[in-house]
C-alpha cells in the first residue's frame, strides 16, 4: 500500500510563518522550478482563487512524474507538461506546442529562503518569491521530493489571491509519461506575431499561434506567471457566456471576468476585435496588462444592446 497521509487544510495557516529575509541569487527561482518539475509525487490537490470576495475552489487527483502531471483518474484524465496535453477518455485528444523562447523569472523575481517547517508530517521549507520588496508567492516545498506541496499567490493588497495545497501526499506516482508517448499530437507551431507589442506590463510576448476559427493565441510570460490572449476579428457577445460572469472595471473601462480555481478570464470587445485573456496572473498584474492592451470599445456596447434586442 502506498504511503499516504492526510492533512488538515487549516493547518496550512499555522505553517506559514513570517520568513527571515536574506538576499538570494537571482536565478534561484529557476533552480526551484527545475527541481519542482522533476519531483515525483501523487495525491490530491485543492486549489482556489479569491478575487473581490468571490472564491472559486476545486480539487483534483494529481500524479507528477518526469515533468508530466497526470490530472484526474482513468478514464477521465489529462496528462500535461512540456508544452503537451493529452486527454484520455471517449474524447481522446492531444496537442503539442512548439515554443519560441524561454523567459527567465530572475528578471523580475527574487527568492528569499524562509524557515524550515513541517507539512503533513514531512519536513519542508518555505520559499518566498519577492517582486521588488513585496512578497508575491510563498511556496512550501517538500524536502525529500522537492514537490511544491502548498503555494500562495499574493495580490498587491497583501491578501492571498490564489492557493494550492496537497491534502494527501505520496512519494510515489504512476509514470504519467507513459500515457503520452506514442500518441498522435496536433502540433502547434509559432506564427509571425501581429500588431501586439513584444512586451506588455513586464510580460514578454513569447510566441503566437493560430487558434480556432481564425483567432490567434498570443502567449505572454514573465517567467513565473503567464497568460494567453485570444484575439479574433469582429464582435463577441460575451454576456451570452455564463451566468457566472462578473463585471470588471479598470480605469473606467468595462470588461467581464470569470474566476476559476487556478486562473481567471477577462473578456472584452475592442474596436474591430474580440479579446479574451486567460492566465494565472494576480489582479494588479491584470490591471497593468489591460492598461497596455486595446481598450473596450463603446461601440460594442451598442452592438451588445442590438444583439440582445434582435439577436
Amino acid at each position, binding site marked *: 500500500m502506498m504511503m499516504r497521509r492526510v492533512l488538515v487544510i487549516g493547518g496550512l495557516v499555522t505553517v506559514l510563518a513570517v520568513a527571515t529575509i536574506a538576499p538570494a541569487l537571482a536565478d534561484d527561482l529557476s533552480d526551484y522550478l527545475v*527541481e519542482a518539475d522533476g519531483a515525483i509525487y501523487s495525491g490530491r490537490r485543492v486549489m482556489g482563487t479569491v478575487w473581490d470576495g468571490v472564491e472559486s475552489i476545486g480539487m483534483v487527483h494529481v500524479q507528477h512524474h518526469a515533468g508530466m502531471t497526470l490530472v484526474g483518474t482513468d478514464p477521465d484524465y489529462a496528462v500535461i507538461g512540456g508544452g503537451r496535453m493529452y486527454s484520455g477518455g471517449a474524447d481522446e*485528444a492531444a496537442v503539442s*506546442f512548439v515554443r519560441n523562447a524561454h523567459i527567465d523569472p530572475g528578471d523580475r523575481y527574487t527568492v528569499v529562503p524562509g524557515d524550515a517547517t513541517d507539512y503533513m508530517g514531512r519536513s519542508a521549507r518555505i520559499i518566498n518569491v519577492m517582486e521588488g520588496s513585496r512578497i508575491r508567492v510563498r511556496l512550501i516545498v517538500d524536502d525529500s521530493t522537492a514537490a511544491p506541496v502548498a503555494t500562495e499567490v499574493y495580490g498587491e493588497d497583501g491578501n492571498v489571491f490564489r492557493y494550492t495545497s496537497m491534502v494527501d501526499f505520496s512519494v510515489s*506516482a504512476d509514470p504519467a509519461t507513459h500515457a503520452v508517448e506514442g500518441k498522435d499530437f496536433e502540433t502547434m507551431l509559432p506564427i509571425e506575431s501581429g500588431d501586439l507589442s513584444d512586451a506588455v506590463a513586464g510580460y514578454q510576448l513569447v510566441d503566437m499561434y493560430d487558434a480556432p476559427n481564425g483567432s490567434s493565441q498570443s502567449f505572454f510570460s514573465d517567467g513565473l506567471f503567464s497568460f494567453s490572449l485570444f484575439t479574433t476579428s469582429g464582435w463577441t457577445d460575451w454576456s451570452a457566456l455564463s451566468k457566472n460572469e462578473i463585471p470588471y472595471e479598470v480605469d473606467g473601462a468595462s470588461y467581464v471576468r470569470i474566476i476559476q480555481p487556478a486562473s481567471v478570464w477577462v473578456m472584452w470587445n475592442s474596436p474591430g476585435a474580440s479579446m479574451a485573456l486567460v492566465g494565472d496572473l494576480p489582479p494588479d498584474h491584470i490591471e497593468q496588462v489591460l492598461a497596455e492592451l486595446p481598450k473596450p470599445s463603446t461601440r460594442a456596447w451598442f452592438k451588445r444592446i442590438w444583439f440582445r434586442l434582435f439577436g
Partner: protein
Amino acid sequence: MARMTPGHNERGELFSAYLDGELTRDEVALVGDMLDGDEDAIAEFHAIREVRATLRLLPEFEVPAALLPDGHLGDRLSAYLDGELVSLEYRRVSRHLVDCPECRAELAELDRARIAVRSLPGVDTGMTGEIPVLPARKRRRGLIAGGIAATAAAAVLVLGLGIGGADAPVYSLDDLAARHVARASAEPASAVLPAMIEVSAP
C-alpha cells in the same frame, strides 16, 4: 496478493527504473510498498534520487553539430511530430527548436505534409477486398480537455463570434483554456503554479 521482496541490488535497480518511469503498474505498487515505512528503503530511494537530481542540474551539452545532419535534427523531427520521442529527448528537441529557425521551418513543412497525407481520400483500385483508408485528421480542438471537463461539457460555453447569426463561427472557452494550459505547461513555472483544472469554464 503477496508480492516478492527484492534483494538490495534489485531494489536499487527497481528504484532507478521507477525514477525513469519504466515500471509497470504492479512494479510501481511494489515500490510503494517498499517505501511504506521501511527506513532503509526510503534512505536508499532518496540517495538514488538525489544523485539523479544532481546529475540533472549539471549543464546539458547539446549533441555536437557534427553528429547531426547539417547540425540539425533531421529525421528526429518526424519522431517528434509522431510523439515517438521519450520525454528527455522530447525536451532536448524542444530546446533545439527554440533556437533553430531552420528546424522550426522544417518541422512546419513536415507537419503540413503530414496533414496533407492524412487528408487524402482512400484510393479505389478496383480490386476486391478491403483497402486501408488513411484516416482524416481528427478535429480535436473542442475536445482537448474533454476528460477533465466532463462535468462542464454540458455547460453552454459556445461563443458566437462576429455579430451573431447562424453562420457565425463558434468556439468554446474549454478549447481555449486547454490551449493555454498546454502552452503554459512548457514553462518551468507550471510546476509550482499548476493550472490544470480549469480546462472548463463555469
